[in-house]
């Protein structure tokens, strides 16, 4: 199992579009994916769960991955957080 703390970098926070991007990316990997925030733990492959977090710009969350491809998955997901879910570029 690997864990890592990240911050929501994009201005608009995790609204519907970034949530979809995140879930799509996470679903490519076999590993289980959880997100911890304010003491909640949600399945990171569930878009509805992700939306209930209502994570705004600057919010801090912890990613948890567990499975055969956890390292690759972590790398890809952290990358998504740091580039603001490819949102702000456009």
């Amino acid at each position: 199992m690997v864990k890592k703390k990240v911050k929501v970098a994009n201005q608009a926070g995790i609204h519907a579009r970034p949530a979809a991007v995140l879930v799509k990316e996470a679903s490519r990997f076999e590993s289980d994916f959880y997100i911890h925030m304010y003491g909640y733990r949600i399945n990171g492959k569930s878009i509805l769960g992700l939306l209930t977090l209502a994570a705004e710009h600057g919010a801090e969350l912890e990613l948890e991955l567990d499975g055969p491809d956890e390292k690759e998955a972590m790398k890809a997901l952290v990358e998504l957080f740091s580039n603001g879910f490819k949102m702000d570029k456009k």
Partner: protein
Amino acid sequence: MQEIKSYEPNTKLKGLAAVNGLVMGVSHIYSRGNININPEPLDTGRIDEEIKKFEQALEGVGMEMQSLTDFASGLDDSDTESILQTQYEVLHDPEMKASVIALIRKKRIRAEKAIYDAFQKYIDLIKSSNKSFLITRLSDLRDVRDRLIRSTQQLTVISRFGKDAIIITDEVSPLEVVAFARNGVLGIICNSGGLTSHASIIANAMGVPMIIGTHTATRQARTGDVVILNGYEREVILRPDKETTELYKQEINRHNEEEKLLRKVINKPAETLCGVQISLQANIDFAEEILNVDKFRAEGIGLLRTDTLLMNSGTIGMDRKRQELFCQNAFSIKDSSSITIRLLDVGGDKLLDIKNQEANPFLGWRGVRILLDKRELLRSQLEAICRVAGQHPGRTRLLVPMVSTLDEFIEVKHEIEQTQHMLKCQNVPVDEKIRIGVMVEVPSVAIQIRLFAKHVDFLSIGTNDLTQYTLAVDRGNNLISSLYQPLHPSVLTLIAMAVNAGKENQIPVAVCGELASDPFAAQVLIGLGIYELSMTPRLIPGVKQAIRLFTFDEMKKLADNMLLCNTLKEISKIREEWEQQYSEKRSDEKKRQE
């Protein structure tokens, strides 16, 4: 519209036979009304059924959304695409699925109520966050919820129809046909519909007799009426009297006898009276149909459509493993002859439950045009096919759909070479002899056929599209369906050109349109020089029976006469004469057997 108040006995309605057959049963009027959510608890015995219904609804809504997504990605409108992407992920949300199933099980409620409650939990939580950037998008979640609820309700209604039911409906979607067939209904009667719409093709594959274009069936019939569906006379008889009922009981018996005769022909070789071998192959859409290849002794698969598979997989076509499994399944047939796999041919009316909003979908973004715009989709499909082909060397033919210019074909061929090269670098076995062919369905290809023939390994003629593009007749439009004539001399001339180009370049020419399954048309095609016909497997025995009673010279003469026809009337006349001759030959054959 005129209101019909009296329900006379022996009311006859005319229509078109989308799927031939003769059945008598009890009519059930089906409509897609709005039903309110039913909060009543379930009997314990019905819980698994309810869960299955929910899973089918997920699959069905997935198909609907897939078609919307395909459409939206062509629009280049990032807002629409974003909404659809979100909705797609909501539909495939593993937690949502698990909680709906848990609710059905624990609370013993119907799928529709469980879906509503599961979504409500999320909606309440999101609302309580008071974040406007989320709350404004709640309508997208409610939309997915409502689609799921509607689908389960449709399935609930359909599941009530018993085995003696004949469904009477305004129109029918491909999804509903599948649901009706799985329930074992006897037949389907529609007010509207075209012969070659996808719903008709699916009904054919699943063997459900269907009459369409009756216009008024739903208004003239009542649920509970006895009804006779007679595809051979293209008519429906509502509330038959005692005499008619007796007559039809005998007729149905006679018909069953005929079927027995056809079953006898199944094991005989497919050859003309003079011994010319004809290859009768199978058209396959669904994994469930693959069994029919052996059952009806098809010589391999002449058209393996991959469209439905990609839609069912629900991952916007990226699920390579699932594609491999489907193709692998096809190779499980007993016959070791070739399998022709057609690349994704979505667009148009193919299984899309929602009307495509392109102004001219049939002249629009479909087939190879989509594949070349969506390279990832093309590459994932090519990789899946090449991997499977490598395990069965020498058996795979790859067919490129909806080509209208040579550039498209060359581009796809180049992609195939690259895929094979990539696999070889990974030490994955590939089939060096994989054959690549083009669908002859756009007139430009038929006109330039001598050019194409130099670049391809085989030709496959799609008569449905070739006819509609040549004659400018929308095959799904029942106002002009009488103009849809696949045997029109203009179409036959194009087919004859393809045959000649095939001969010159020594490459095989096949016909894989539904036309091949019409015994008369099959003879015309053979007469033109087509030796490979591919069709719904269930229809192979009928074609084989006809082929075995005529010589090749007779068929050639027939084809020559057809090419010389000037009018549609002349075509009908030749057909009538042939039907007469065929029925005489059949009764002679029957006597000989007795």
